[in-house]
């Protein structure tokens, strides 16, 4: 086996000739590191061959139990078409970098322009960036945007009391360096308690955040009213959603959303232990306050349309501490995959998929509700993809028993389980219901 890096292609003769050209005796002399901080120890990491490593990692991953995941709450495992895997892994996409030389990176720039365009179509808002890390960081950046554009009107960010804990924690960290304060407003049977929100908004709100569907899977019924409440208080209305939901639920622009955030990797990625793709779309008036990268269309010297990263003066590598955000590396390749998946589905496919999310969740809830000791859904609302079930027995114990039967569900309360169904798991709902029956 090669000593040294298997990916450094130098022969010994080449190395010697190059050292000679540089004018040194050995590689060590090129390191200008003072003796007192030179490292001469070992990391104690054994090199392994490729075949060995593949076998090792496949053994390691085999220790993950093969469970059917009826899990959601912001991370959704939809079926990814083979085309997406196949073509997104072409090295010209995978091993490329940020498009600092647009003339030679038109392919990726166009793919990102198309990703932005798809989000514009689905949100109805005219500006979408080409990605944040995930829904949580997108929400947090939206709060910071509200601070830039609504500084005069207030410093309170209002979020639902049911906000996903991960999102809340990221939001708290992103606003820690500002004068923003995060407050919660109550929910009512799975939807925003609009009256309570109206009391809470006040004059000094900077942003009102609501989700559709909510983290508990319920579809909001009074989004336009929420948008109006925010608008009257001169606060931004930020709507959290995901890319599949955008195919069927109310168009964010039509309910007055100023910013749309959420998870776009619901299409394009398999479940990947939480890796995400933060979608971020907003109004034209906030264009110069948008965090992250934007691809714009222009012309080349031959008069043909061509694409380039644009408005980069907003970015950290130019404006440094006055930048709209510190984001540099984002989730470009995931955005490419998502765009491919959306294009693969097309309008009929996306609408059908979204409808299926509603009907599959509805019928699974009904079947579970037929079981003694289960009531589902808990909320008397329409649901998208997931719902909460009330269980007479402790939810923890049921979930643990279900896991032994090969199924994963969320525990969201002492007597509450949350179940999510997608087309990837729809064929196994009968088995899930049977397993419930078994363990109840």
């Amino acid at each position, binding site marked *: 086996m090669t000593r*040294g*890096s298997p990916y*450094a292609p*130098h022969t010994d003769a080449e*190395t010697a000739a190059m050292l000679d050209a540089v*004018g040194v005796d050995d*590689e060590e002399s090129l390191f*200008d590191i003072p003796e007192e901080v*030179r*490292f001469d120890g070992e990391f104690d*990491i054994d*090199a392994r061959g*490729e075949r060995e*490593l593949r076998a090792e*990692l496949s053994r390691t*991953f*085999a220790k*993950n139990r*093969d*469970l059917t995941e009826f899990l959601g709450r912001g991370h959704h495992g939809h079926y990814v078409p083979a085309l997406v895997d196949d073509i997104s892994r072409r090295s*010209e996409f995978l091993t*490329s*970098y940020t498009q600092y*030389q*647009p*003339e*030679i990176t*038109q*392919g*990726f720039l166009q793919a990102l322009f198309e990703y932005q365009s*798809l989000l514009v179509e689905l949100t109805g808002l*005219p500006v979408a960036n*080409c990605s944040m890390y*995930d829904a*949580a*960081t997108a929400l947090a950046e939206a709060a910071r945007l509200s601070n830039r554009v609504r500084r005069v009107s207030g410093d309170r960010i209002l979020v639902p009391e049911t906000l*996903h804990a*991960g999102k809340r924690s990221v939001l708290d960290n992103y606003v820690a360096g500002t004068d923003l304060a995060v407050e919660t407003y109550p929910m009512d049977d799975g939807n925003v308690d609009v009256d309570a929100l109206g009391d809470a908004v006040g004059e000094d709100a900077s942003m009102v955040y609501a989700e559709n569907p909510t983290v508990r899977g319920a579809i909001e019924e009074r989004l336009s009213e929420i948008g109006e409440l925010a608008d009257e208080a001169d606060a931004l209305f930020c709507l959290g959603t995901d890319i599949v939901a955008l195919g069927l639920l*109310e*168009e964010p622009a039509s309910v007055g959303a100023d910013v749309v955030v959420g998870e776009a990797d619901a299409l394009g990625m*398999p479940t990947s*232990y939480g*890796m*995400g793709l933060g979608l971020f779309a907003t109004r034209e008036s906030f264009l110069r306050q948008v965090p992250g990268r934007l*691809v714009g269309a*222009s012309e080349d*010297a031959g008069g*043909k*349309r061509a694409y380039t990263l644009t408005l980069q003066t907003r970015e950290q*590598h*130019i*404006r*440094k*501490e006055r*930048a709209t955000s510190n984001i*540099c*590396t984002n989730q*470009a*390749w995931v955005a490419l995959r998502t765009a491919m998946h959306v294009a693969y589905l*097309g309008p009929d496919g996306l609408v059908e998929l979204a409808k299926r999310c509603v009907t599959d969740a509805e019928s699974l809830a009904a079947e579970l509700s037929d079981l003694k000791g289960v009531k589902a859904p808990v909320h008397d609302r329409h649901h998208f993809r997931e719902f909460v079930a009330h269980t007479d027995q402790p939810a923890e114990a049921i979930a643990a028993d279900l896991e032994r039967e090969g199924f994963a569900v969320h525990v969201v309360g002492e007597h509450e389980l949350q179940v999510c169904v997608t087309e990837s798991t729809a064929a196994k709902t009968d088995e899930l219901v049977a397993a419930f029956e078994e363990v109840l």
Partner: protein
Amino acid sequence: MDYDQARYSRDDQYEPLLAEKNAARVEIDEEDSPLPAELTRDSVELPDLSEPELARHYTRLSQMNWSVESGPYPLGSCTMKYNPSFTEDVAADPNAAVHPDRSARSVQGSLELLCDLQDYLARIGGMDAVTLQPPAGAAGEFAGILVAKAYHEANGNDRNEVVVPASAHGTNFASAAMAGYDVVELPSDEDGRVDVDALDAALSDDTAALMLTNPNTVGLFERDIVDIAEMVHDVGGLLYYDGANLNALLGRGRPGDMGFDIMHYNVHKTFATPHGGGGPGAGPVGVVEELAPYLPSPRVREKGGNYELFDPEESIGKVHGYQGNWLVLVKAYAYIARLGDEGLTDASAKAVLNANYLASQIDYEVPYDPFHHEFAATAGDRDAADVAKRMLDYGVHPPTTKWPEFVPEAMLTEPTEVENRDSLDDLARAFDAAMADSDEELENAPSKTTARRIDQVTAAREPRLSWRALDDESEE
């Protein structure tokens, strides 16, 4: 080397947009909708293409894109090295595709890998504890600075300044500012390193941290690092290591041994995980023991033969909704394990050799030395951006241009360890040929790439950011 990049073109544009090929509007009809009309949108308009059409579209786009596998990609500070193919297969293992809310007992394999990766990174950086959560280098910086802030607050120190050298990556400034700190910019001395007197003047009881890249952004090792660390610690500040240039240090120096208290790793740079055209990356953060309680949650640990997630006692909370960019971390683990001690050490040796060899072969002034894995050449009285455009015509990707700002017409070049002598000679020829070309040739470049010189001013003045914007325009 003769070179022509693929170009698919039709009328007034290159490959048409998806929506221009075919699009359709689908009305959402209440009769066959599972929801009442007031809860749904009216219609959806999207591209409507067959799978073969899509396969061709995206294959064409891929062919109109430069990558590490197309040729040299010597972007300084970006560390674009070859990404081994097998790491993709490893990351695609179906057993690795798990939901982040799975119980720890059902994802022991994933947790084991993460735990081992935490351990590898700690050893490589000379750190005591590592978190894998930050989804990019800048997210790591932000997390690291929040950790510093939490530490100072817990110790009753109200500090409001972070010191950053002028040569640092722009993200350092932005991350510190995001965390609420005033940024004190530090000038470089005439050797291109930290000006120790200026540092002395900048440090005070207000200093929360100094953020350093070492070797710095022109590849120079901060030889006074031990003194610098002492100066920062003497005023009660913390020393932060920006891992962007760790590729030059692997096995020869560890930030922890140099007195750094916090560092982030750019695993997509140092450990050859594909940059994906701009991400996903991952920016794990390592700290010394004293700061470990403040790290983001969750971390991973082994207890009695089982792996579990845990929240450090004084954790700052989260900087990513879940556990970070998992697939990238898998690839980083596989890369580190493939190379081991000798491979990692050799990688930095060859990276440094390559930079020095390339610099010796080009006819450019390199104002600062001795440098490690990257060097700042200057285009002198030529426009570095124009020289770069001309280099594209010679079949190589040019270096980072006009940065850092203190090097006039900078061409920050980092060949990495994956180029052999032939390929470096090709690069050198491209450098020199571009420099020897006339002003006119430079200004008219590139011509062999998919697109010719792109008008970036108009793109910024009249932003057109979606096909809808293009459409609206053509209707006007």
